């Protein structure tokens, strides 16, 4: 428990098995960024196949077999693993594990998370889960290929699922430990004077997110155990009686239900999508306030909206299951709750938009990413509405429309917010700024090509092109008119990949040669900027912190500067 700062730590203790939340946050950050690039690469291989069907894939073709052409089974594996890796190994660890761990203790003015060793354990559990997931590519039978949703009966018979399930258990454990830590930290360790309604919106986002993780993940863990039993112990939790596979009756007891899996899976997976967006909204809030030099508009409504959103997220999940033969009553119930849950999202987005009104806007790179989040998330959210209404969902379910919808929310939505956070907080972590020039070179093409990939998906989806098709819909008459978009989307994807190169270069160069800045280069009000850059090992602040003000006291009438830090009397 005592963070022995007066004992000399060896290399292993200081950098590898550190219990300092900043090191752990960086570990999460680096690992998750690597996984994001890996998951993105998998998708680029898929997009090659979709644009140029049955032509050898360049560069990595040799890894795919003799002909270099992407086989359907591998395509399915890439699809399942792309989703799994991006969500569970990429976005959530970055948004919660990296940003949450690094900045929650700083923004609440304390020395570390409540349980530093548990924090390290949660990172290493994530790491092991990641290794297990990636190793599945090298196992006989290959990686999982039943979608990130792992629906039975297919997932009981397809190869790669057992290792996927084991990997998920490690990842779920990591999330649970991490979110317990965040909840206890925020409740117990806030600095004197930091009342609940003085918390930065980023901390509120992390707090609600952690509740979602703590309460929604366990049923999926239970379901994963059941699916593991089905795969290795010949049980039939999810296999109905009378099932025939590959021409032969399946030799299990039967009497199970594939729907049970769907319920337990989506009970988590719906709150999971709010886990993907809430930290991002938190980051956007911080950056908007800072770069408009105004307080966030409607802080209280933002807080109540985010709490209400978290609560509602638990009772909408079956809108992913409208086509499972649901009765009218329950379908109406879930449609209603789904419509209701759009309200807090709109409240949050509206408050953000209004926050811009009358602001002295600074268009630095973090702000560009944060600003673009608003319309991008807007498109993502609005395109969700036809999916939440049963009647239109019948037409759109499992089409490219769905893929377009959720990617808009997560890719130019959450990922842009996370990039914004990296540009914003890089000076706090390293004491240097990232280059603005390279930042803009990263931002503008990324924005353009994100839209290039995902906007046509709505067109294809509305035409009825199904998702998860190896040949991109070629065999279907209804797809013929929209197939030409495939090449356009794929080229956009390759260009999006290229657009990340300035970012990578920027990070490496700026770490050593970036413009050195003082501890508060953006003129921000929240507590993390009161610490040195980087914050002191183990104790963060030079002296104990006391809070006297609300989180966004920008342009206070009569103040000498256009910002007043929370810790200033």
């Amino acid at each position, binding site marked *: *428990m*005592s*963070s022995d*700062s007066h004992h000399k730590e060896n290399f292993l203790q200081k950098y590898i098995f550190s219990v300092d939340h900043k090191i752990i946050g960086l570990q999460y950050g680096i690992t998750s960024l690597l996984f994001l690039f890996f998951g993105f690469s998998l998708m680029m291989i898929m997009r090659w196949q979709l644009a140029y069907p049955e032509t050898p894939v360049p560069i990595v073709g040799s890894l795919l077999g003799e002909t270099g052409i992407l086989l359907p089974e591998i395509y399915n594996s890439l699809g399942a693993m792309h989703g799994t890796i991006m969500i569970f190994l990429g976005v959530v660890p970055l948004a919660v594990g990296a940003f949450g761990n690094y900045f929650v203790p700083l923004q609440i003015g*304390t*020395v*570390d*998370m*409540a*349980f*530093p060793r*548990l924090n390290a354990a949660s990172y290493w559990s994530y790491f092991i889960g990641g290794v297990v997931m990636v190793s599945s590519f090298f196992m006989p039978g290959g990686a999982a290929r039943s979608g990130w949703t792992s629906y039975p009966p297919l997932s009981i018979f397809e190869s790669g699922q057992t290792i996927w399930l084991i990997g998920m258990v490690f990842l779920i454990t990591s999330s*649970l430990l991490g979110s*317990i*830590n965040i*909840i*206890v930290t925020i*409740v*117990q*360790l806030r600095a004197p004077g930091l009342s609940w309604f003085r918390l930065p919106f980023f901390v509120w986002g992390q707090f609600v997110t952690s509740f979602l993780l*703590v*309460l*929604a*993940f*366990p*049923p*999926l*863990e*239970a*379901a994963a*155990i*059941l699916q593991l*039993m089905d795969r290795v*112990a*010949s*049980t*039939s*939790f999810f296999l109905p009686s009378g099932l025939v596979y590959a021409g032969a009756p399946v030799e*299990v*007891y*039967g*009497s*199970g*239900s594939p729907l*049970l899996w769907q*319920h*337990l899976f989506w*009970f988590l997976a719906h709150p999971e999508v709010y886990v993907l967006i809430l930290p991002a909204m938190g980051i956007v809030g911080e950056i908007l306030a800072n770069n408009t030099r105004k307080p966030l508009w409607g802080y209280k409504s933002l807080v109540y909206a985010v709490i209400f959103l978290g609560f509602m997220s638990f009772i909408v999940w079956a809108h992913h299951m409208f086509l499972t033969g649901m009765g009218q009553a329950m379908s109406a119930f879930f449609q209603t709750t789904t419509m209701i849950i759009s309200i807090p999202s709109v409240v949050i987005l509206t408050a953000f938009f209004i926050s811009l009104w009358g602001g002295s806007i600074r268009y630095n790179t973090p702000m560009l990413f944060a600003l673009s989040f608003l319309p991008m998330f807007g498109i993502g959210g609005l395109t969700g509405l036809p999916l939440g209404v049963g009647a239109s969902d019948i037409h759109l379910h499992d089409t490219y429309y769905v893929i377009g919808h959720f990617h808009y929310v997560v890719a130019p939505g959450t990922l842009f917010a996370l990039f914004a956070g990296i540009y914003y907080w890089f000076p706090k972590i390293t004491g240097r700024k990232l280059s603005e020039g390279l930042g803009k070179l990263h931002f503008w093409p990324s924005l353009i090509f994100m839209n290039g990939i995902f906007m046509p998906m709505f067109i294809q989806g509305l035409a009825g092109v199904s998702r998860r098709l190896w040949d991109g819909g070629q065999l279907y008459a209804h797809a013929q008119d929209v197939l030409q978009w495939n090449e356009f989307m794929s080229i956009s994807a390759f260009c999006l990949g290229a657009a990340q190169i300035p970012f990578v270069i920027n990070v490496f160069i700026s770490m050593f040669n970036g413009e050195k800045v003082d501890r508060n280069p953006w003129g921000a009000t929240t507590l993390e900027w009161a610490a040195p850059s980087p914050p002191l090992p*183990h*104790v963060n602040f030079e002296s104990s912190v006391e809070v006297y003000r609300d989180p966004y006291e920008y342009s206070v009438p009569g103040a000498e500067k256009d910002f007043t830090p929370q810790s200033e009397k």
Partner: protein
Amino acid sequence: MQVPYTVEERPETGLNNSKLGIWVFLASEVMLFGGLFSAYVFLRMAAPAGEFAYWGSKLSIPMATVNTLVLISSSVTVIMSWASLKMKDFEKYKMYMGLTLLCALIFLVIKYFEYTGKFHHGIYPSSSTFMAIYFTLTGLHGLHIIGGMIVMGYFWLPAGNKMWHSEPDHFTNRIEVAGLYWHFVDLVWIFLFPILYLL
């Protein structure tokens, strides 16, 4: 600098960090077993009438009743071990903690005989949906018992002695927190027993 409120309570909440932490963890455990219970109910409703009752009748009520009483006793002994520490009686603590571990061991031994008895009669998780959920629920519960034994065993061994002498209040809190986890394991069984064996 130490993380605050590891031992003393934060005035605003009246809690120390571990107390809050363990309860949040137990909340997640409620959802874990809740997911499994939900699966049980769902599967029972989806199964032909009487199927679950038929397979359920193959379980041994006497063995499970004994196990219920054993686990309840272990709950009492674990809280007595905490109470002993609060009264600064380390020897009593060791006795009660030892009894708790003994009860846990007895529970596992009876479980072992239950399971092997089933296997002997050719009944495995794959034999029926009921047996599948029975083995999974009691198996996961058993893993939680083992986990609890490991933690409490660690506190019972010389490690406990060292911690008691260097930081008694912190150690007492740790036993309280371990006890909370243990009571939860008992709680799960209180529901498992009637649902699986009696209904």
